[in-house]
């Protein structure tokens, strides 16, 4: 348990730092890299929680695809000729206030609700269980998500296409 807690601590620290990095860094590229760290850390946490399948999907989807998308996005929308301006707007303090308000609220209710509840780790979830669940109980959303992805794809293409 100690080991797990240590791992959690390390991952969590990395994620937290990276998260702050994403929202505070002055370099867009760095932000993308911080995002990688957060997502990878998330995958690590999933493993820690016995959700290996989700962890790998996370790695594949995020680190494999989404981050690439972001990088493309950054490159396509940045005019290399213009100098880097400040990446933040003037809503820093209100933004911070909102974030702190939410954080305080969430932390309070969570601590209030779960106090010292322990996670009793049983065996890691079998992927089969997940597929069973998806294809038995959640077949309809699954099918719809299929269409949705198609729609998102086509939509993105329609928008991004130069014509």
């Amino acid at each position, binding site marked *: 348990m100690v080991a797990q807690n240590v791992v959690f601590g390390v991952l969590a620290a990395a994620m937290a730092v990276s998260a702050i990095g994403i929202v505070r860094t002055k370099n867009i590229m760095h932000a993308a890299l911080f995002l990688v760290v957060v997502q990878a850390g998330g995958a690590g946490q999933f493993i820690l929680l016995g959700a290996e399948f989700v962890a790998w999907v996370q790695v594949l989807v995020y680190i494999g695809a989404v981050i690439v998308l972001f990088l493309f996005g950054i490159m396509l929308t940045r005019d290399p000729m213009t100098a880097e301006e400040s990446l933040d707007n003037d809503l820093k303090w209100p933004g911070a206030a*909102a974030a702190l*308000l*939410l954080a305080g*609220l969430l932390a309070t209710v969570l601590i209030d609700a779960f106090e010292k509840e322990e996670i009793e780790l049983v065996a890691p979830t079998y992927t089969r269980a997940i597929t069973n669940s998806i294809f038995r109980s959640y077949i309809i959303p699954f099918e719809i998500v299929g269409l949705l992805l198609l729609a998102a794809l086509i939509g993105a293409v329609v928008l991004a296409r130069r014509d």
Partner: protein
Amino acid sequence: MRLPTRRSPAVQPVLHGATWWTNGGFDLRVGVQIDGLAVMMMFVVTTISLLVHVYSTEYMRDDRRYTHYFAALNLFTASMLLLVVADNTLQLLVGWELVGLCSFLLIGHWWEEKPNGDAALKAFFTTRTGDIGLLTGVIMTFFVVERATGQGSFDIMAVNEAALSGKVGHTLLMMTALALLLAIIGKSGQFPLHTWLPDAMAGPTPVSALIHAATMVVAGVYLGARLYPVFYEGLNIGGGGINAMAAIGGTTVIIGAALAFVQDDIKKVLAYSTISQLGYMVMGLGVGAWTAATFHLFTHAFFKANLFLGSGSVAHSGSHHSFDMKKSMGGLKKYMPQTYWTFVIGTLALTGFPMLAGFFSKDEILATAGESDYQFFKYVGLAGAVMTAAYMVRCIYLTFFGEYRGGQPDVHGDDAHAVEHGHDGPHESPRLITGPLWVLSGFSILAGYLNAPAFGIEKFKEWFEPRVAFPETLIHPEFKMADAATAVVVVLIGYALAYAYYWPKVLPQNLSERNGLARAGKTFLVNKYYLDHLYTNVVVGGIKGPVARAAYWVNQNVIDGVLNGVGRGARVAGKFTYAVIDQKGVDGAINGIAVGTGEIGDATRKLQTGRLQFYALMLFICVGLFGLALWLGH
């Protein structure tokens, strides 16, 4: 001396009625109640109306609205009769208002000139103020009956019976009586609502004679007589001492008479005289002299109509349509002998010259006041008599004696024939005018003999006093020579004072004679001093000078000022209400809401900044705040 009222079963009121309206499941009736009082009034109204009609055919000849004039005059007569024969208070109120309307129309007959319109408005408005009392009083009569019998009614007999039944609370009766008294004050020109009556002289003179002397203005007195039990019980008239009705009447007697002194307009003299005489009537009712008061009403109608028509005759043929005694009259005696003599008869009757109508009626009021516990008002009456005699003599002097002061026709706008024969000098009026004058003079002489206790005649009481639903303890004083003599002396003093003052050529003559006869300078000086003092200081300096002028000033500026002020004040209040409260306050609030609505709209629009991340901020802040509130509220 108290005499029980004699009950004669013979004279019962004649009642006829039909359903007028239905409310609350029962019928309210309209109908006639013809009894002695009504008959007396009908006689007065129809007689004088007839004479005035005849008179007007000449007086109003070639008037620009001849037809309107007679239409209104007839409507008035009809309304007055409606009032008189009403068998219920509500119907009486209808007639009451209608005569007010006719008065309005006739006062304002020459409405092209603003003062005439103003006078008409003032008359209507002032009497209408009194009508607050009538309105509420009539309403309360309904409930007076309801208290007594369980079923409300406006029926006059029922009201009177209820008032006498003892089943009705005194407070209600008193309130009813006071409310109705207010109506009397308004209609019958009692203090302090009397100021409209002199102004009402703006109307044609025959109208003044008919409406503002003989009939309409006595409607208040008639109301008092009609519902006498209500007043009798409500004001506790039987109790003696003083009561509101007597006090109002007494005040009016003095006030009216005092004001008559300082008028230069002959019609205004008569108008104030009317006020004063109406005061006698109201006072009479107030002191329990029902018969005397109604009798005075009766006689006054004739001699006052006579005087008014006489003044009209003077204006018509003698003074180029001016009523100003000091500027346009004087010395008319020789030009208009018939007018002069009828005027003198009227004056004598009015002032209570022995054996003329006013003598009998006025004396009876004073006698009753003396018999009952209202001694004070007897002296008030006597004081009034002195003043009446004095101002009437003054009036006659200024009009018919001295030099003729009429110059060019004064364009009073009275009527069109001014141009026609106004350039003639003063002359006697045609027969259509003098005829009615003589008829009325006849009445002025004879009317008094209907009720002359001195001669044992009490026909008036026999014929006209109600037999049912009437207070049983009313006083009918016997004739007392002492009282009569007092009254006569008082009147004569009045004559003498005025005579002495207004015949200045006579006075020095008188004095020189005394000089020559007595040769006693001291006595002469004393006498002269005495007389001078008396004439100059008491009469001139006292009555005519400060007192009367002050009274007049008070009248014009305070009382009338209050009335006009009420009118003006209402307009000012109206303007204030409208401009400040309504437009700024009430409407402003409404508009404020409208504007505020728009402003909030603007504010919400400003929230819609177009900045995406501001929206996001709002979203999260709202999530946070909502969440916080929910968590706290849970």
